[in-house]
């Protein structure tokens, strides 16, 4: 499949998952991610895979837990309210050191919210979402091509670090159609000697578990996991910089907000304002380095978000409040226009040096 095909973002995720060797998908219907389930329902039976519509999001994530414990690549997908329900299972997956890929095509909240795009699950995704000290690796695609690329990457990361990986997409990128190339080098999944696949009477039993009643043991378990997180932060952080070298006003945005921001940067440059954009691709681990560097030379940073201001906290931490960081946002399913962002850039430029 070297040629490009025109596809919806959600379908690109599904096809990429299959290419990555995922043959076990468990889901529950919710807008706006249903195309993933529909695609899997069509394809899986034809390639010897399993598509199963679970009785709830809770059951679906636990089916992923079981399949992953049994050593296969498994995934589930949902949208915001469904991710809240999956959070229990995600915490157990993290606590049991199991790989899993979870897609969140975010919609507006809180509560039932709406069905239009949003980025308001940033805190939930980057801080863990469920109970206990843990993280997921969180990938934020900004195009249909990246929906595919990052899905394949997600399965590799999940297996390598034995942890849940979330693709934090939004309704827009899930629904929109763009050309995608599926010309990927697929790495084989690593051996999983820890998997519960039956002892074959050849080894002591494997136990997949997150219960540690001895507090010293549980503490050590947490310490060990966070050691792994440090390695991930060092090796797996991803971001893209756009015109930041000489930028005076730096935008911070991911996903669909980054695409709109890019247009605003170009418009500002036409007006002679030196604007730039840092686009985190992983939001956990958060790319601190480019923001720390930008704070050396820019006069302010604007966090452009489809939320009431969630990523802005990480941006402020990354630049250690050395420059003012302001918010440019829309919520509830609304998306900022390039002009709204351009206005924010103009205001920042006036108030600057």
């Amino acid at each position, binding site marked *: 499949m070297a040629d490009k095909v025109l596809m919806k973002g959600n379908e690109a995720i599904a096809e990429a998952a299959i290419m990555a060797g995922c043959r*076990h998908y*468990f889901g529950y219907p919710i807008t706006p991610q249903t195309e993933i389930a529909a695609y899997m329902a069509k394809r899986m039976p034809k390639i010897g895979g*399993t598509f*199963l519509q*679970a*009785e*709830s999001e*809770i*059951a*679906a994530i*636990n*089916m*992923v*837990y*079981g*399949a*992953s*414990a*049994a*050593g*296969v690549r*498994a995934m589930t997908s949902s949208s915001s309210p469904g991710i809240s329900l999956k959070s*229990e*299972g995600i915490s*157990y997956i993290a606590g*049991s050191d199991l790989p899993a890929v979870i897609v969140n095509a975010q919609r507006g909240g809180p509560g039932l919210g709406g069905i239009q795009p949003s980025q308001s699950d940033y805190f939930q995704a980057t801080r863990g979402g469920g109970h206990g000290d843990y993280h997921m690796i969180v990938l934020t695609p900004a195009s249909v091509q990246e929906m595919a690329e990052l899905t394949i990457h997600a399965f590799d990361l999940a297996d390598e670090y034995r942890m849940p990986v979330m693709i934090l997409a939004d309704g827009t990128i899930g629904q929109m159609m763009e050309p995608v190339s599926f010309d990927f080098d697929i790495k084989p999944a690593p051996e999983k000697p820890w998997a*519960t*696949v*039956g*002892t*074959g*009477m*050849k080894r002591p*039993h*494997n*136990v*997949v*578990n*997150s*219960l540690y009643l001895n507090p010293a043991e549980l503490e050590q378990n947490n310490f060990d996991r966070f050691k792994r997180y440090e390695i991930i932060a060092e090796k797996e952080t991803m971001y893209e910089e756009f015109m930041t070298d000489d930028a005076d006003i730096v935008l911070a945005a991911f996903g669909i907000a980054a695409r709109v921001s890019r247009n605003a940067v170009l418009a500002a440059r036409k007006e002679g304002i030196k604007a730039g954009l840092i686009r985190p691709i992983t939001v956990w681990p958060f790319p601190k380095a480019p923001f720390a560097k930008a704070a050396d030379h820019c006069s302010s940073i604007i966090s452009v978000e489809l939320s009431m201001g969630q990523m802005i906290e990480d941006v402020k931490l990354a630049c250690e409040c050395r420059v003012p960081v302001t918010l440019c946002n829309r919520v509830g399913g609304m998306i900022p226009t390039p002009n709204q962002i351009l206005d924010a850039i103009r205001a920042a430029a006036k108030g600057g040096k």
Partner: protein
Amino acid sequence: MTIFEKPHSLVDIPLHYCPGCTHGIIHRLVAEVIDELGIEGTAVGIAPVGCAVMAYDYFACDMIEAAHGRAPAIATGVKRADPSHIVFTYQGDGDLASIGTAEIVHAAARNENITVIFINNAIYGMTGGQMAPTSLVGQVTQTSPYGRDPKLCGYPVRVCEMLSELEGPEYLARVTVNSVANVRKAKKAIKKAFQNQIDGKGFSLVEVLSACPTNWGMTPEKALEWIDTAMIPYYPLGVYKDRSAESEAKA
């Protein structure tokens, strides 16, 4: 000549269960069946949250610890990953009949080819004796100190009867382990529930009425009697569904 020995599929460590608790007997029955069917090497067990939470330490086959009530969903994932695994869950009444009702009902409805060992002792044991979905009317517990009042909290759930209304499941039976004769019958039912899975017949659940002397506030002996006098009248023993036997009888 060996007269009596520990089943191979039971790990040789002390169990944490209280004196007089019948979990130990039921663990042993499950392990004996696993040995007799020669499935220890392919078996994957799912432990619950509740008194049997540490069952993963006791069974020698590969084991998974589940979130509260979710064992049938996890078992589904394991079984779908590789149908050659012999997958069983071991769940208590709070786990299966309260917080995990959706998971058990839909695993049964799908006729998921798994084996479920359901321990009904009419109480939450691990947390110290609270009212369970299966606590009897009038039963005094920490959270029903004046006795379970059906006006306030409804009636106890009969799981076998409820699931028997579904088209899906293959085999549903209720047994107990309060006498030698009943232990033998319980083992037969558990063996059938595993054999059904090996034969690809589908969802099999054995409900075992179990004693909790500690939280019932009884001696072990009295607790075994209470199963006869209080539990069995509300939870009659017997086979509630046996699809293969029914279709053979029809033929």
